[in-house]
């Protein structure tokens, strides 16, 4: 929820439908792997918007819907691209579709879809009633983003297995976790990678997916390292996160394995790291195969 320097619409005055991604004659809901897409295939993101005209005008203080648009932004973080389409707010109360077309070879891995409502005219003046007057003013203060995974096994933990000795890593190590996000809103799956040393005698067990002692240690260590990385990298932890972001994933892990929000978990690690990691052992069934099987 953002605080705005102008009045915004009541939450119920604007309703966006759940977006779908249409490609090659098929449609996908957010979160669903878009299997029929490849680089050469264009696609369209479609999102509907419905307006309660009276409620919108009353809450924003605007006198007309003229010059107000619904926007849908499609962002691809890994290719650094953004596409924005806008549509004049439909005055009828019936839903209208906003369509964002993405051409071939423009995006990769995943796109995030974010709706907004914006003042697209600049005819007003600064006023004591705090009615928005600047072109571009956001007229809803809270929106969620929707993620569409385009490539890869979006639900699996990214893992690669190879010989550490040949790669110049310590040859006796069993694994290495690469996790060093720049921002708490970075896409989680792009920020983490588990490397398994195929020279290590335990590697087959680690890669097997079977509940074993070694995997319980790996599981605990991965979560501990990620929590400690977040605690050491970010001075402030927000309470809301973008979908499928580092923050959202870590918040989920903290709630599941420590019973704390991410912000609380970071505080706990700062106040009593030993106690917190001990609690993590308990909740991850550390070295307790029967509990995990």
């Amino acid at each position, binding site marked *: 929820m953002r605080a705005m320097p102008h009045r915004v619409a009541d939450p119920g005055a604007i309703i966006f439908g759940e977006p779908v991604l249409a490609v090659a004659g098929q449609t996908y809901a957010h979160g669903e792997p878009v299997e029929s897409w490849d*680089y050469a295939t264009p696609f369209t993101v479609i999102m509907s918007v419905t307006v309660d005209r009276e409620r919108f005008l009353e809450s924003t203080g605007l006198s007309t819907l003229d010059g107000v648009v619904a926007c849908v932004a499609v962002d691809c973080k890994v290719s650094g691209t953004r596409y924005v389409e806008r549509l004049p707010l439909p005055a009828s109360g019936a839903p209208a579709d906003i369509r964002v077309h993405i051409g071939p070879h423009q995006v990769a891995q995943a796109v995030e879809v974010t709706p907004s409502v914006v003042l697209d005219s600049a005819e007003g003046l600064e006023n004591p009633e705090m009615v928005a007057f600047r072109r571009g003013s956001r007229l809803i203060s809270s929106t969620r983003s929707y993620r569409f995974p385009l490539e890869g096994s979006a639900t699996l933990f990214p893992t690669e297995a190879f010989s550490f000795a040949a*790669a110049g890593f310590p040859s006796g190590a069993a694994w290495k976790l*690469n996790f060093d996000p720049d921002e708490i809103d970075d896409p989680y799956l792009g920020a983490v990678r588990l490397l398994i040393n195929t020279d290590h005698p335990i590697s087959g067990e680690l890669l097997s997916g079977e509940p074993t002692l070694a995997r319980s240690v790996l599981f605990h260590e991965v979560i501990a390292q990620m929590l400690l990385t977040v605690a050491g990298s970010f001075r402030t932890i927000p309470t809301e996160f973008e979908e499928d972001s580092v923050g959202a994933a870590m918040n989920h892990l903290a709630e599941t394995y420590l019973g704390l929000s991410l912000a609380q978990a970071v505080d706990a690690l700062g106040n009593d790291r030993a106690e917190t990691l001990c609690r993590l052992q308990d909740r991850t069934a550390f070295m307790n195969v029967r509990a995990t099987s």
Partner: protein
Amino acid sequence: MSHTLIPRLTTGDALARFTLVESALRSGRNAADLVIDEAGVAVPHPTGGSAPTASVLGRWRAEVMESLRDVKTGSVNDNAMHSMRLGQAISEVIDPSPSDAAHDGGWAFLSLNLFPDILEARWPLKDGRLPKDRWIGKQAGRDRNYLKLAWRRWQLLGPVMVEFNEPFGEDEFGSLLERQAVARNVRLVRFAAREVATYQGAFGRNDFTRALMMGLTAMTGPLQLDVLDDHELEALVRATAMQIDPHSSGLGA
């Protein structure tokens, strides 16, 4: 735009190749002797474009190297010019598909196999080690592969660098493109870069760039800047610059 897909090295193959290259350079071998201008174990993405033939890879190498002939490295200015000319050459010769370019395996192939001499010229051995993040990339998180950054910076700011004959330095790029959500508004970043290129005020240029981008980032909260037209964006950047330093030149807007 090219629909020829760059062969990719897996993380394991890239790290193994990196170790070999580092060891060879340490033992005194010439980086140009380490060039492998065929795909080998590197495999392009299976769909969405064509795989490059050996002759295409050979042409990529020959033309990029020709573009960098007589471009030196070493000083801050030389390094900035090297990065700019490299980014331009990759854009014009290889012209990667943005979809393909989002994957680090292709950049690892270009760095370690096709252009190790370019990497070595800019990011040579230091205390017997090569900077892995510049040669391969970070593998997880924001990529720092030198070729990828040079290409990306040219894609975003090439027109501004040409217009003002201004190859920005690492610090300025860092500030201009640090906030990814802001950097995806290409027009905004280009207007900001024009302001920086012409800045002649009292602040250090890096400090001015940082302050300008902080001011613009703050505006993305209440305003959706993507809907502004060019004239409005230009005026917004100009006004933000004037708030930071009333003596900024104004030539950029």
